[in-house]
C-alpha cells in the first residue's frame, strides 16, 4: 500500500459517517467459499419425474427461494438436499463448519444424522411434522440441545426460555404441550427448536403455508430478523411470491421438475423473462 492509499484509507475511516465513499477492498462476493453446491441433480419416482438436471450454489448467509406451483418438484428437491432420500443422478456437496466437504447422496446415516443435528435445520409446513406434540414446548427446544450433547438442566431450560422469548411465545407456556398452542405459535416453536442448536443451513418447506395472513406477517418478520442476526443460509420452498420477495436474495423458478428461470429475487419477480414466470407473476391477485 502506498502512503497516499494509506492516507486515503485512514481518511475514509474517520469521515465515513457523512461522506459518499465506500470502504476499499470490498470482498468479491463470488469468491467466498460455497456452502452447498448442486450439480445436475435429477430424481425419478419410478418412471415419474420428480426433478431434472438441477444445478445451483448457495453461499453463507444467503436465502435462496424455490418457487413454482404445486407439483413442480420444489419439495422433492428440498428433500434431496437434506439427504432425506438419495437422488437418481447428480451430486450435492455441503461444506461443514470445519470446511469438510460432504457428498449428500453418499452420506452414512450416522453422518447425516450428525449434520441434521448440528449443522442443519428443517422447518416443515405442518408444525406437527417437526414437533413432538406430546412433549412440552420447552421440552421440544431442550430435546434438540440434548441431542447435541447438553446435559445441564438449568442451562437447557434457560436456553428454552430464551428461544421462546425470541419467537415471541410467553414464558408461562413453557410447560404446555404444543397441542394447546395456536397454529402460528406451533410454527414459531418449530423454528425455535430448529435454531436453538445454531444451524448454518435451514431447509424450509412452505413455513408460512398454513397460517392466517396476520400470523404470516409476524412469522415473516421474525424469520427475516433471525436469518439476518444469525447469518443463516436458507433454502426456502414457497409458492407464495410475496414471501419469496421478502425473504429470498435469489430465486429459482421451477416447472415440471426443471428450473426455468433463476436470478435476483426482485429482478425475477419484476422483470420475469420466461413465459412461465410471467404467468406466475401475472396471476398474483392484487390485495
Amino acid at each position: 500500500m502506498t502512503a497516499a492509499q494509506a492516507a486515503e484509507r485512514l481518511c475514509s475511516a474517520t469521515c465515513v459517517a457523512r461522506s459518499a465513499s465506500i470502504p476499499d477492498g470490498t470482498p468479491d462476493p463470488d469468491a467466498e467459499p460455497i456452502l452447498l453446491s448442486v450439480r445436475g441433480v435429477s430424481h425419478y419416482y419410478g418412471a415419474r419425474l420428480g426433478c431434472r438436471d438441477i444445478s445451483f450454489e448457495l453461499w453463507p448467509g444467503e436465502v435462496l427461494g424455490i418457487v413454482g406451483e404445486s407439483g413442480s418438484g420444489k419439495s422433492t428437491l428440498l428433500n434431496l438436499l437434506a439427504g432425506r432420500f438419495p437422488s437418481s443422478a447428480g451430486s450435492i456437496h455441503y461444506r461443514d463448519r470445519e470446511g469438510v466437504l460432504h457428498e449428500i447422496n453418499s452420506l452414512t446415516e450416522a453422518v447425516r444424522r450428525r449434520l441434521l443435528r448440528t449443522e442443519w435445520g428443517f422447518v416443515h409446513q405442518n408444525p406437527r411434522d417437526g414437533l413432538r406434540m406430546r412433549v412440552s414446548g420447552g421440552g421440544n427446544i431442550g430435546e434438540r440441545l440434548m441431542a447435541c450433547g447438553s446435559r445441564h438442566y438449568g442451562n437447557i431450560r434457560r436456553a428454552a426460555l430464551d428461544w421462546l422469548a425470541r419467537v415471541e411465545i410467553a414464558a408461562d407456556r413453557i410447560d404446555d404441550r404444543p397441542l394447546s398452542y395456536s397454529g402460528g405459535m406451533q410454527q414459531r416453536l418449530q423454528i425455535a427448536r430448529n435454531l436453538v442448536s445454531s444451524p448454518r443451513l435451514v431447509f424450509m418447506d412452505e413455513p408460512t403455508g398454513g397460517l392466517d395472513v396476520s400470523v404470516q406477517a409476524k412469522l415473516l418478520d421474525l424469520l427475516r430478523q433471525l436469518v439476518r442476526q444469525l447469518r443463516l443460509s436458507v433454502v426456502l420452498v414457497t409458492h407464495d411470491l410475496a414471501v419469496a420477495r421478502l425473504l429470498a436474495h435469489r430465486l429459482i423458478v421451477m416447472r415440471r421438475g426443471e428450473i426455468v428461470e433463476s436470478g435476483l429475487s426482485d429482478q425475477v419477480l419484476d422483470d420475469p423473462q420466461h413465459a412461465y414466470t410471467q404467468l406466475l407473476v401475472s396471476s398474483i391477485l392484487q390485495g
Partner: protein
Amino acid sequence: MRSASSTIADKPVLSVRGLSKSFTLHTQGGITIEAFSGMDLDLWKGECLALHGPSGAGKSTLLRSLYANYKPCAGSILVNCGSRPVDMATASPRTVLSVRHSAMGYVSQFLRVIPRVSSLDIVAEQLTAHGEDERSAREKAGELLARLRIPKRLWELAPATFSGGEQQRVNIARGFIHCYPVMLLDEPTASLDAANRETVVAMIKEAKAAGTAVVGIFHDETVRCAVADRVYELRPRDARAE
C-alpha cells in the same frame, strides 16, 4: 503523487453505454415493447442528472435497469465505486446485491415493506445493515423522520396505514439515512406538500455536497430546477420510430 481519490474522481461514478431494454410479453402473444435502445450516459461524483420526458418514455424503466431491478437486453452499466468497476447489466446476483448495499441507494415511488415492522425500524435497519449499533441507528432514524415531519406518535407504527405522503416520507428517510455514492430517485416528491418538498430538496443538495451522484425523475419543475445539474431527455417511443 496523485491520491487514490483523484484517480477515482477522474472517472464517472456511473457509466452507461449502449443500453437497451425491451419487454417480451409471452402471456400476451409474445409481443415486444421497446423501452429504449442504445443509451449512453455518464454520471459524475456530486452531480444530479434529471431524467426528463413524457409518461411512457422509459424514465422509470431506465432507473430500474440501473439498479438491476430490470434486466437490460444489451449494453453495460459500469459502477466505479468500489475497488473494481462492476457492470450491473451482467454481474451475478450476489455482486449486484453487494453493489446495492455498498454503493447504490434507490427511492422507489412506493414503499414496499414487511407489514409489521415499525417506521423507525424500517429506517434504522438501513444503518444497522451498514454496521451501526442499534441505539444510534434508531436515534438517527428518529431525527430524520422528525425532519421529514413524521409525528413521533407514528414512529412505532408500521407504515401500512399511513397516508401516501407519509409513506413516501418514510421511504425517503429510508433511502437517505445512509450516504451512498449513487442515489436513484423515482419521483421522490410526487405526493408531498410544499414544506416537505423543500426538505427533500435540501436533503438532495446535502447528499450531492457529500459527493453522492444522483439520477432522478422529478415531475415537479421547481424541484428539478433546484437540484438538477443536467437534464437527460428521453423521447417517447413513437417519436423515435419516425
